[in-house]
């Protein structure tokens, strides 16, 4: 990322308040995360692509909910090497979002260790070393907040299993 843009984003999103922190500790890590297709009840995976050569590794997936495929959800997962690397990836994703109205989500229902969103139609969050971006990809816009919470619950369950 261009240094000037990074500085702008760090100031705009007050990165000092959230960078390098995780509810599950700095060593919390999920390795080899793969979608099974059951993560989003009521949604069907249309396509999933895992890019092993990307740094960090990323899985792009498209999900649909109705026959006409007008409701399409894009869900991307980045598997980073650490919590800090995940927060860097959050900034990288924000660097490719044009809106000046994207805000940090801090409510009790906000998913992840840190989350950002616009209305309820896009959510970006980091949980431990994973970064998740949920957004619309179809003409009929759907709300993604509850879906993000559901995905986060799957990740939390994985973290708890790893701890045991």
């Amino acid at each position, binding site marked *: 990322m*261009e*240094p*000037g*843009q990074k500085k*702008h*984003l760090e100031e*705009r999103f007050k990165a000092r308040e959230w960078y390098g922190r995780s509810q599950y500790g700095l060593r919390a890590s999920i390795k080899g995360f793969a979608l099974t297709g059951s993560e989003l009840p009521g949604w069907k995976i*249309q*396509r999933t692509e895992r890019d092993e050569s*990307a740094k960090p590794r990323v899985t*792009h997936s*498209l999900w649909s909910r109705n026959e006409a*495929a007008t409701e*399409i959800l*894009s869900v991307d997962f980045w598997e980073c090497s650490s919590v800090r690397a995940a927060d860097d990836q959050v900034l990288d*994703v*924000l*660097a*490719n*979002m*044009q*809106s*000046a*109205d*994207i805000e940090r989500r801090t409510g009790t229902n906000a998913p992840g260790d840190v989350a950002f969103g*616009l*209305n309820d*139609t*896009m959510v970006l969050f980091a949980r431990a070393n994973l970064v998740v*971006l949920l*957004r*619309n*990809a*179809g*003409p009929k*816009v759907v709300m993604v907040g509850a879906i993000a919470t559901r995905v986060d619950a799957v990740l939390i369950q994985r973290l708890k299993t790893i701890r045991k």
Partner: protein
Amino acid sequence: MIAIEAIKFNHDSNSAASDALNIRKNASQFISVPEWRRFVSVNPEDSRAAYAVAPTKGKTLTIAVSLSSTDPALTFIEVRVRKHVKARPVSFINGQTGFVFFELIDPLKHASIGVRDVEWHWEFRRGPHRQWRHFTITRHRIYTVLDVPTGPWNQGPYNAANTQLPWTDVLDYACHWADGATSTDMAGALVTQSVYALGPSVITYDCPGGGSSHYSAGNFACTAFLDRLHGGLGNGIYVNCSDCATIVSTFANLLGCDLWQSRMGWGFALNQMLGIGSNVWQTCCGWSGFSYHEVAWEDACTANDDVFDACLQVDGDSDPTAAPHVALLPQDLRFGNPGNLLYRDRLATPAGRATCNPQPGTRTRRVVV
């Protein structure tokens, strides 16, 4: 019986001056030479070749053709395609000529971008004073671009592993969109218009996602975008400025333009505009402003260089800060400085112009995947 066994359009992979360019079909399919093969190539799309106008200007273009004969008495004939391939004598040894070079007749006479399907009616005669006789037909798809494609496209190394060789799947659209263009500025403008015209049915601005990149985060997901153009899902319907800048510059550069993807910023308020796919004048999606914006940009991507923006139309009248609005799609429009009434003034509010600065450090050409 006389037959054409094979035709090589790209017979010299080290040059684009006397033959066709090095090309491939898409990310996964290579186009091997000879492009036309007997019993294999039937339709024009089975035999594709692309020529660049600039390096071939004033040069003789040739193809390499291999012929066969089943008549043992036939050792010497003349062969031609009227209006397309200049006549020349060929000799058969054991019924084969091997590859021999034929000159093309004025193949790029219009010197403009285009794609056309040609049908060549091959003729032969046994001697200078004998009648020409038809013996076969070959069909080809010929692309004409203005110059050798620029990045991310390249011409080497010429092998199946090089996915940045020009894709004919992209040429099919780009040559159609910029059909007839005789200059790179004209080609860039026509590509910009065509991309903007894809809205709202094929692509539309990503209001729900905060204007996020769906096709250009990292590399250019060109395969997915082509799928979208073909009526498939692609990466979905939404695009942002980086996607549009990447599509325009990548498609235009395939035609010989020399554009970059580059950003401006950081954080600025907007005048009212028409985002791609929208017919409502408003600040983009009603937002307070852009965190950044990205366009297809010429040369060094500075205030003194021209931009092509397929993501939005600005107000083109004498006061871009207020209604009434006159829609202007930025094509070959100088970025400018505050007060110039050029691209910057039309995009950003008077207060926002100070932070809507060219960021030439972001200048890039995303790899096509």
